[in-house]
């Protein structure tokens, strides 16, 4: 079984169970905060006068425990990290917003969720913080238009994790974060001893064992490493339905599950030039024509609106493909024939990009279908595999007539629709934003 569960990834009123689950998660969240003492603003404010470091201890224990479990599960191949929401990085608005939050924290004595735990247990200051929060969020909505450009663009890096920033394996970052947290716990306890006059000898000895367990788990995460692209590719599953018409009865609908290789063998991901062309005029989908040939071939001839990403550079655009385009994006891969497009398909599918298809027969087949009347294009004698099968008088790119077929001339095209739009999470719908 693959996690996160696909049925829980899309949250909507049409699937009420997701609401119940999120309410339970929220319940556990509020319960934990209250039992840790976060309903009392004095405990929170004490953090910033070094007398009690409860905020730091709870927060960093939670972050490190969740991080080790998360990347452990990812490393073991149980959890698909590309389906885990990672807050996109907006450096400028993030840092300024963070500084403002810090001021609000020490002035008000709470952060938003702790004020909920406080308000619900009858603390009047917690309630007022919560109501102030509604006013603050409202004010932000009212004033955001004055700095919209800065808010949406300044320091934007998209989905970016620390291992990518430092160019080291994610397991190494996990180990470093744990070491940093343990050092902070030690330092925090020393500060409590000095400023809070706390007797550390009364602290449970078990915490040392806990620290060692955490460190050992981090080392294990580093040792497990990340699952290879091939492992991830082999775990991908597709479902397709087949409808068998019955005489005098309702048709039988079977749901079939295919592995990625079976999808290729059964040619379920190959779409005809006609379907690829018609996708452009289908309101339900947002097709991206991804041309994985060399730049030279692309310059000779390419389909209108096609984006050129040579196969060897494909992995560089995977993070963008995972985070940027809208959920109804359909990626249509093409090479001259099919060889390069198939290996591009394997890379993208293994990286959990959804709705990826291959142009059947590649650009050569496209020309054979839409450009058969174009006399400037001559067939090349015996082209090799995945080579252009035509001779071009000039590198006109997409300025040949067949690059952008007329929607009027080709209004009626027969094809068997292979594209089954699969709507996963709306990428803008996750997170707090």
């Amino acid at each position, binding site marked *: 079984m693959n996690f*996160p569960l696909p049925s*829980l*990834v899309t949250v909507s*009123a049409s699937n009420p169970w997701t609401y119940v689950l*999120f*309410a*339970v998660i*929220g319940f*556990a*969240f*509020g*319960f*934990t905060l209250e*039992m*840790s*003492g976060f*309903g009392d*603003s*004095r405990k929170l404010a004490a953090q910033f006068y070094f007398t009690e470091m409860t905020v730091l*201890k*709870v927060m960093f224990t939670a972050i490190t425990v*969740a*991080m080790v*479990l*998360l990347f452990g599960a990812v490393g073991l191949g149980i959890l698909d990290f590309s389906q*885990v*929401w990672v807050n*996109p990085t907006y*450096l400028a608005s*993030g840092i300024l*917003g*963070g*500084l*403002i*939050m810090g*001021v*609000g*924290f020490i002035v008000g004595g*709470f952060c*938003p*969720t702790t004020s909920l*735990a*406080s308000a619900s*247990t*009858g603390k*009047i*200051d917690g309630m007022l913080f919560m109501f102030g*929060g509604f006013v*603050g*969020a*409202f*004010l932000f*909505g009212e004033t*955001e238009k004055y700095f919209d450009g800065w808010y949406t663009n300044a320091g934007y*890096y998209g989905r970016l*994790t620390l291992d990518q920033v430092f160019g080291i394996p994610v397991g190494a970052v996990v180990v470093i974060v744990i070491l940093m947290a343990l050092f902070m716990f030690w330092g925090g306890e020393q500060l409590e001893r000095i400023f809070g006059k706390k007797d550390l000898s009364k602290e449970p000895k078990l915490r040392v064992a806990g620290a060692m367990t955490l460190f050992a788990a981090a080392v294990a995460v580093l040792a497990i490493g990340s699952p290879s692209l091939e492992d991830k590719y082999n775990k991908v599953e597709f479902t397709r339905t087949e409808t068998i018409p019955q005489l005098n009865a309702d048709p039988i609908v079977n749901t079939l599950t295919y592995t990625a290789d079976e999808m290729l063998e059964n040619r379920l991901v190959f779409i005809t030039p006609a379907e690829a062309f018609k996708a452009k005029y289908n309101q339900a989908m947002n097709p991206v024509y991804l041309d994985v040939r060399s730049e030279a071939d692309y310059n000779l001839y390419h389909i209108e609106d096609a984006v050129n990403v040579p196969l060897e550079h494909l992995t560089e655009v995977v993070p963008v493909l995972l985070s940027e385009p809208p959920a109804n994006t359909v990626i249509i891969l093409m090479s001259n024939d099919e060889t390069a497009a198939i290996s591009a398909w394997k890379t993208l599918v293994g990286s959990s990009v959804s709705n990826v298809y291959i142009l059947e027969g590649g650009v050569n087949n496209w020309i054979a279908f839409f450009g058969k009347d174009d006399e400037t294009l001559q067939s090349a004698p015996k082209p090799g595999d995945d080579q252009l099968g035509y001779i071009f008088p000039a590198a006109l790119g997409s300025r040949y007539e067949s690059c952008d077929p007329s929607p009027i001339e080709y209004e009626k095209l027969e094809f068997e629709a292979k594209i089954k739009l699969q709507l996963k999470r709306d990428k803008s*719908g996750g*997170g*707090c*934003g």
Partner: protein
Amino acid sequence: MTVTSSNKKSIFNRPEKPYVHPYFGGIVLGIVLFLAFFLTGNGLGSSGATSRIDAAIVDVVSPSHVDNTPYLLKMAGGDKNPLDDWIVPVFFGALFGGFASGFFNGRLKFMTTKGPNISNRTRWLMAFLGGVIFLYGARMARGCTSGQALSGGATLAAGSWAIMFAIFGGAYATAYFVRKFWL
């Protein structure tokens, strides 16, 4: 049921229990956070719900104002229901969860938590102001201590770590100037 003194008396008269050890609380919170990611792919949060509830109220009071405010339009424009989002049940769940923990541990009582040298009224004003400031910053940073620092911290999101340090930096830098509220 023994209640030691009258000011210790909570609603429902349950005896007040001490808070759990911070490291234990952190481990439980970390497991909750991991399970949220593991099952749904989403972390924890709450400030997003605040602005969604705001948007829902504006949508009822003055729908035309939603159409003129880009920020609200994203949540409540057209036939969008601003409350149809995972973070809204988390918000109300957290309210109930806090209440439940307060109930079982005898901590349900009307009171004001404050430093020893300020009046209740000053504390109330400061709590309200702090809420205004915090949520303004939280919406600017696209998440608060839960949605960014906790959830983003655990997934190693680069921007979230920057935000986390900014929060602590902002609070430590201001702490000296507001010390009479707390010390």
